């Protein structure tokens, strides 16, 4: 029986996996992949609540805006990555440490 809890469990698992991707990888683009997973888990959460709790489609609109914002953020993030690569010739995140120490 599919209930709200199963959708919440899936979005929770997606969130955890997204955080694991962000921590485990040292490549900037791979970290952006993790960010996409986290945003998708949030959008899935909103949509699940629309279906199972109240039916007034505001959750769907919120998910739509999350998708829009995730796309814009991916575009700008990848632009920054490309600029970083043009300057430093590497996309390893340990090279982005000039403000450290």
């Amino acid at each position, binding site marked *: 029986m*599919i*209930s*709200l*809890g*199963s*959708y*919440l469990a*899936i979005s*929770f*698992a*997606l969130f*955890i*996996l997204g*955080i*694991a*991707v*962000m*921590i*485990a*990888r*040292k*490549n900037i*683009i*791979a970290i952006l*992949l*993790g960010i*996409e*997973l986290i945003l*998708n888990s949030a959008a*899935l959460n909103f*949509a699940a609540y629309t*279906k*199972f*709790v109240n*039916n007034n*489609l*505001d959750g*769907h*609109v919120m*998910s*739509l*805006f999350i*998708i829009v914002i995730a*796309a*814009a*953020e*991916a*575009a*700008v993030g*990848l632009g*920054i990555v*490309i*600029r970083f*690569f*043009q300057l430093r010739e*590497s*996309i*390893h995140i*340990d*090279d982005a440490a000039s403000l450290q120490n």
Partner: protein
Amino acid sequence: MFNDFLFLASAALTLGGAFAVVWVKDLMHACIYLMASLFGVAGLYACIGADFLAATQIVVYAGGVVILMLFAVMLTGGASNKTNRYGLEKIHAMGNTKTKMVAGISAFVIGLVILKIMVSVLKAQPVSQVGANENSVEKIGTLLASDHILAFEISSVLLLGALIGAAIISRPRKEIHD
């Protein structure tokens, strides 16, 4: 019955793809597994009855973001030096065992914290009528034009800003020779 089957298949695709994004060594493969995971999320939206949302997910993510990632991987490929500015060896860009262990432990800890917060929500689920699947396109359109018009307009400005910003940040610059 087949709704449950669709839910299980989409959930397996989502979680399998996300898990593979953590584990694979090659960045291109990770992007493909991310695309598979996003297709799974679109399937989950279809199970909920959010047809417009599922179609938007496929159009934006599979047709947009994934191609963007693939192009970025292409444009920034190439091997780099193996030692950082201190002369120490750099950790492999896609993570070795130590980083994955750290990731697993921290994800576990964060998961426990979230579960502790969520347990009250999960226990207090209102048993209300589950709505039937309906045609959501017109209703979403009406909502976007009436209740959420401000967010709609602001998101258009945001997209304009992202478009111009991404183009300006990453355009090739002329070298100035003295």
